[in-house]
Each structure stands twice: as C-alpha cells, then as structure tokens.
C-alpha cells in the first residue's frame, strides 16, 4: 500500500510526461483516462450540439429522455449498439469493415501528444505537431475506404469530395502551423521546436499568446487555421462530403448501427483534436489568462478558483431548472434526477476547491475551456451558414487561404529575422 | 382581329364568345398557319396551355384547345379545333418551347399525337401503360392491370 502511495507521489512530483519518463504504467493510465474523457466529451458534445442548435433555431431539442434530454446521448448510444449492422451485398467486405476503425484510430491516436498541461500528456514528442497533422490526415484514408467499399454512387462522390477537400486545406493549414512554429524560435538560442509542450512553453517564455504575436500576423495565421480546420473536419459550412441535400449522407450513407457510431465518434474527436492544435499553437494551450502580468499569489488563487466556480455554476443551473420543472407527479423522477445531477456537479465543484486538486486540475481546466469555446463555434457555424459549393470551396482553399498563408509565412519569417538581428546587436 | 382572320382565311374560322371570353374554332387544315401567324404577327408570345376535350359521340371526337396570351396586348385568346380519333396535329414546340410538356400530356391523356415533337412519349403515366385515361370511354376505376401486375408485382392497384 505504501509502495503504491510512493509510486503515485513520485508521479505527482514528476516534471515530465509519463511517456517521456518512460513510465509505462502511467502511460497506460493516461491512455485510458484520455480515451474515457474523450468518449464523455463526445457524448456531451452530442447533447450540447443538439441543445444549442435547437435553441438557436427556436425549438427545444431533446426533452423526453431524462430531464432536459440529458439521457438522450445514452439512449442514442444504446440504440446504435442494438441496431442491425447492415452491409450492402455488393460492398467490399474487408475494407467496409476496416474503414470506420481506421478513422477512429486516426482520430484517437492524435491525442497521444495533446498537452493538457505541462505534465498532463501521454507523451511529448520531438515532432509533436507534425505527428498530429500526419496522423489526423490518415483519417482521409478511412473515409476514402468507406466511400469506395460501399460500392454506391453517393458515398463514392462524398469520399472523393472529402479527400480532395482535406488534401487541399491541409496545405493552407500546414502553412499557418509553420508560421506559428517559426515564432517559437524567437529565443536566445534561436532554435524553435515542434513539440506541443515546447510550443506552449515558448508562449509562456515570450509572455504572449501567438495569436497576438506580431499583430496582426499571428491573428491572420490563426484565422487561416480556424477556417482550414473546419474544412478538415467536414463541418458546416464545408460539410460537402456529407451534404444531406446533395449526397444524402456522403461517405457513411451505407453504414448503420455500431459502425456508423464509430464515424460519429471519429468526427467529434477529430473536431476536438484540431481545436486542441489551434489552442496549443495560438491560444496558449493550458496557460491561464495573463500568466505573466497577473502573476502574484493573489491572482494565482483567484484563477485557481475558476474550475470549482464553473462547476458550481453548472450545479446552480441544474437546481434552478429543477425548480422550474412542472410540479406534477409524472415529473417527480425527472426533477429529482436533475437535482441529483446538480448535486453531483456541485460536489465535483467543491472537490475542485481543495488546493492540492485545484493546482493540478487547473491546466486541464483551461485547456478544456478553450477547446470548448471552439466546439461552440462549430455549432454556431452550423446554425448560421449555408453550404459552400464544391468549386467555391476549392477556390477558397487554393486562391484565398493558400496565398494568404504563404504571405503570412514570409512576413512572419522576415519580422522574426529582423527581431533576431536586433537581438544580437 | 378575328374579323381580319376571317377575311384572310374565309369560313375556316368561327369566332365564338362565352361568358365574355373570346375564342375561335379553327378548321384542322388551318391550324399550323394560324398558330404561326398568332405567334409572329399578332404577338401571342406566351403559350399558356394546350389541352383537349373528348366527345365520343361526335364524328370528330376531339377538341384540341390552345390557350394563348400576348404580353404586348395583355390579351388572351383560345384556339380550338376538332379532329377525329387517330389524327395527328403539327407540334407547336418550334413556335413555343413551352408546348413541349403540354403536348406530351395531351398525348398521354388522350392519345393525340403531335408531328414534329422532339420527344413524344408519356409524361405522367409510366411508359408502356395501355390506354389514355382522360378519354370518356376510360372508366374512372379502370387501370392497366397487366402493367401493374408486371411492374409492381401486386394483383391490383386498388
């Protein structure tokens, strides 16, 4: 028992990620944690997207399963698991079977290097950002496989569209990423880094999020990435690959049940993954707001209260809505359920106030909060924008974003060079 | 206008009026020319409708009706002609492209053929259907049972 405690303690005091420290046990724990957290996040996103979109569209969204439809994603998951798994007779069996797993694997593997905190990552790779871009681009393969193996027109067109789209936008995305990486080399040694943790630490060292660096260059690069990442994940207004009015559902038209849910899972994890890249590169990753200006102990305390307060606010919302529930015997279970959920959230909030916990949880909280902001943007886009046409999408990628990315890259390099010159004088 | 036509074409044209609406009955032989003249000289540039009426008791069984409108004159005119069963009419598609589907529908519903139509086939009913439903001798409950049995695999559509 004491040994285990020591073991945990040794981990908690470690200044390295478990992967970098070569600690296989903690790597395993982290993989499980990330996997579970991601699944919960996808489930939560499912509910939130429906709810937020519904409220944007003057309707209520799911209301029946559980209070305010809170159990809806679970009901959906059960439905999908129990559904008949249909494979078209003319489909290419093996590829049809493998495709969703490829997509999910690609989407999940990227999280190996996502830094939720200075030590809260499965591992820290020397080529972190390259790894993320590379592996996430592998999901195209799964999509192409799915579209082709279905042996049907609409999935094939959807797959072709989505792969053409991903390949095109990857170029602009890469240029934007490179211009952010260039900024990491603005230190005394003049060497940058591709490591995800190193990038955030560079931002901490330079005392500035890269989005504000060389204003407006950082902002433009961020904008390019923000557009390209929506296109990369095939979401509105770039959701041509699954445009339901044109191609019914695109590459996953022929999928059903469990395998369809894998595509769903992969889509949302990919969204979270690219948002994590954006947060890491431009928005300071796990850093809390103003780590350099408001850095005395009072401010540390104030910011360490944020996670707990957020959860308490959620809890308060639950209680408020439980009070507003119809006072009817049929609603008693739901009201109690909602209040119970509020109690759980409140307890979590209280636990987060314990200093030892709050210090460790802070990084993860800020990172998740920033990613959540991106998730909200995704939903907002979907509620607002019509869909681009394919040629317009390509024109945008090649004729607008690519030259813009090149320009920003060259300008960033020049400005960085100038600064370095001044530095050495 | 009709008076002018009468002067040119003689007794082939009968002007008629009902409920304040003018229309003219035209002899079958004059139809191609009259339609052309109406379009080009009298500026009836909009072909509103083409349809037919079946009178099984008459010798000339069908009335074919063209409803025309002129944007320039803000005026409507109807041209009708009588034809016997099996006789065909010249297509109005070269004059008004709008006649395309309208003539196909007349063919579909009455079995009147239009010569020179680019694509004379059924429009609302499926290809291969027997009978023309808007003829008076086609019962309201009647259908092509054979077609239904072959193509839908059911005994009857009713």
């Amino acid at each position, binding site marked *: 028992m004491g040994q285990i405690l020591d073991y945990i303690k040794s981990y908690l005091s470690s200044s390295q990620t478990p992967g970098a420290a*070569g600690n296989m046990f903690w790597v395993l724990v982290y993989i499980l944690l990330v996997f579970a957290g991601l699944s919960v996040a996808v489930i939560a996103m499912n509910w939130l997207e429906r709810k937020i979109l519904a409220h944007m569209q003057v309707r209520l969204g799911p209301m029946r399963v559980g209070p305010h439809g809170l159990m809806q994603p679970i009901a959906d998951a059960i439905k999908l698991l129990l559904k008949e798994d249909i494979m078209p007779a003319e489909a*290419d069996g093996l*590829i049809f079977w493998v495709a969703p797993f490829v997509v999910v694997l690609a989407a999940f593997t990227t999280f190996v290097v996502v830094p939720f905190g200075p030590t809260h990552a499965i591992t820290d*790779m*020397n*080529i972190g950002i*390259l*790894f993320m*871009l*590379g*592996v996430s*681009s*592998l999901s*195209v*393969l799964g999509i*192409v*496989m799915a579209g*082709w193996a279905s042996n049907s027109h609409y999935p*094939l067109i959807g797959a*072709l569209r989505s*792969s*053409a789209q*991903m*390949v095109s936008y*990857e170029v602009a995305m890469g240029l934007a990423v490179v211009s952010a990486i260039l900024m990491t080399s603005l230190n005394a040694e003049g*060497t940058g880094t*591709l490591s995800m943790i190193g990038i955030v630490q560079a931002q901490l060292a330079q005392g500035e999020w890269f989005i504000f660096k060389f204003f407006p260059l950082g902002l433009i690069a961020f904008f390019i990435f923000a557009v390209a990442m929506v296109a990369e994940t095939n979401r509105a207004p770039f959701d041509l690959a699954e445009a339901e009015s044109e191609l019914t559902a695109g590459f996953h038209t022929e999928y059903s049940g469990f395998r369809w849910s894998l595509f769903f899972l992969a889509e949302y994890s990919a969204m979270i993954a690219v948002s994590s890249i954006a947060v890491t590169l431009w928005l300071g990753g796990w850093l809390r707001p103003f780590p350099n200006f408001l850095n005395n102990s009072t401010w540390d305390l104030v910011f360490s209260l944020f996670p707990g307060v957020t959860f308490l606010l959620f809890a308060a919302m639950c209680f408020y809505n439980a009070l507003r529930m119809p006072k009817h015997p049929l609603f008693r279970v739901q009201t109690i359920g909602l209040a119970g959920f509020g109690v759980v959230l409140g307890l979590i909030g209280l636990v987060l106030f314990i200093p030892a916990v709050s210090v460790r949880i802070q990084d993860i909280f800020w990172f998740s909060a920033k990613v959540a902001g991106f998730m909200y943007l995704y939903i907002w886009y979907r509620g607002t924008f019509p869909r681009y046409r394919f040629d317009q999408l390509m024109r945008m990628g090649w004729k607008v974003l690519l030259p813009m990315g090149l320009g920003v890259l060259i300008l960033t390099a020049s400005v960085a060079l100038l600064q370095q010159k001044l530095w050495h004088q | 206008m009709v008076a002018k036509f009468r002067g040119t074409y003689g007794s082939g044209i009968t002007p008629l009026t009902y409920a304040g609406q003018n229309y003219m009955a035209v002899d079958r032989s004059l139809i191609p020319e009259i339609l052309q003249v109406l379009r080009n000289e009298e500026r009836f540039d909009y072909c509103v409708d083409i349809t037919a009426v079946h009178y099984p008791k008459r010798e000339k069984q069908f009335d074919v009706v063209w409803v025309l409108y002129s944007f320039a004159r803000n005026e409507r005119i109807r041209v009708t002609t009588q034809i016997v069963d099996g006789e065909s009419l010249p297509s109005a598609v070269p004059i008004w492209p709008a006649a395309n589907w309208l003539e196909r529908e007349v063919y579909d519903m009455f079995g009147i053929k239009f010569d020179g139509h680019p694509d004379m086939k059924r429009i609302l009913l499926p290809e291969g259907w027997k009978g023309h439903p808007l003829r008076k001798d086609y019962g309201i409950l009647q259908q092509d049972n054979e077609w239904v049995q072959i193509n839908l695999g059911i005994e009857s559509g009713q």
Partner: protein
Amino acid sequence: MAPVATPFFFYLLSGIMLIGGILVITRKNPVHSALALIVTLLAQASIYLMLYAPFVAGVQIILYAGGIMVLFLFVIMLVSIDRSMRERQFNSQWIPGIIAATALGGLFMAVFTKGNDIFPEHALPMVENDNTQQIAMKLYGQYMFAFEIASLLLLVAIIGAVVMAKKRI
C-alpha cells in the same frame, strides 16, 4: 531511455512490410493493392521511429501515406475495377523476372557480407531530441543548393501538370 524489445519490434515491422509488399503485387483489385502499400509505408515509418528518426517518420506518414496515397487512390477509384479484375495478374515473363531477382539477391548478399567496409562501424551519434533541428541545419545549410534545385524541379513538374490538364488557361 532504454529501447523496448528492439529486435522483437524490428522483426514484427519487417514482417508486416514484407507481407504488405507481397500483397501489393498479388492482389488483383488495385484498391486492395494500394491499401496494402499504405500498410507497408506505415510500417516503414515505424521503423524510422525505432531508428530515432522521428522527423523522417512524420514526413513519411504525411507525404507518402497521407498525401500521395490519397491521390493515388483517387486515380485508382476512377479506373474501371471490373476490367482490371479480369486481366491476368502476371505476364509470364519468367526469365527476365528470375534474372532481376537473382541480380537483386546478389546485390543484397554483397551488401550484407561486405557491408562493414562500406558503411561506418557504428551509427552516427544522433540524439532523438534535436533530430529535427539537425535535419533542418543540414538541409538549409550544407545542402541548401541541392534543396533549392529539387524544389525548382518540383515547381516545373507542377506547372507541367497544370499545362497538360488545362487546355486553356
């Protein structure tokens, strides 16, 4: 850090590569071949990782497995699969095949036996942590000219492709 069961992973990945390579040439369906090639390329990327060359591995994944293979698949999907399925797989050119195989085998044997003279005794002292920086220094310092020449060549290829594909610009 200590390498984990290096021989085991080396043989595993090599095995995957070999099986993938054989599948590439034996599958009748070109899409299956392409997918087998991707498996081979990914296994190769993993071997690069084992050699402490993460940058090369990353580039391998992005460029070969990601970009090029997707474009490749594109072309294949638009080719009539049915026809290629019916075509004969091998052209019965046994004699040239055997000659080529023997020559290649001989080459491998020669390298394997005399390799110690050709290659340096031990691996170059490359540290994983600044692998990327080292590549960058070499590429943009020592071999700058060659790098620029190569990029010019690619530019020519791109322009050529555009000219060929588009009749009027």
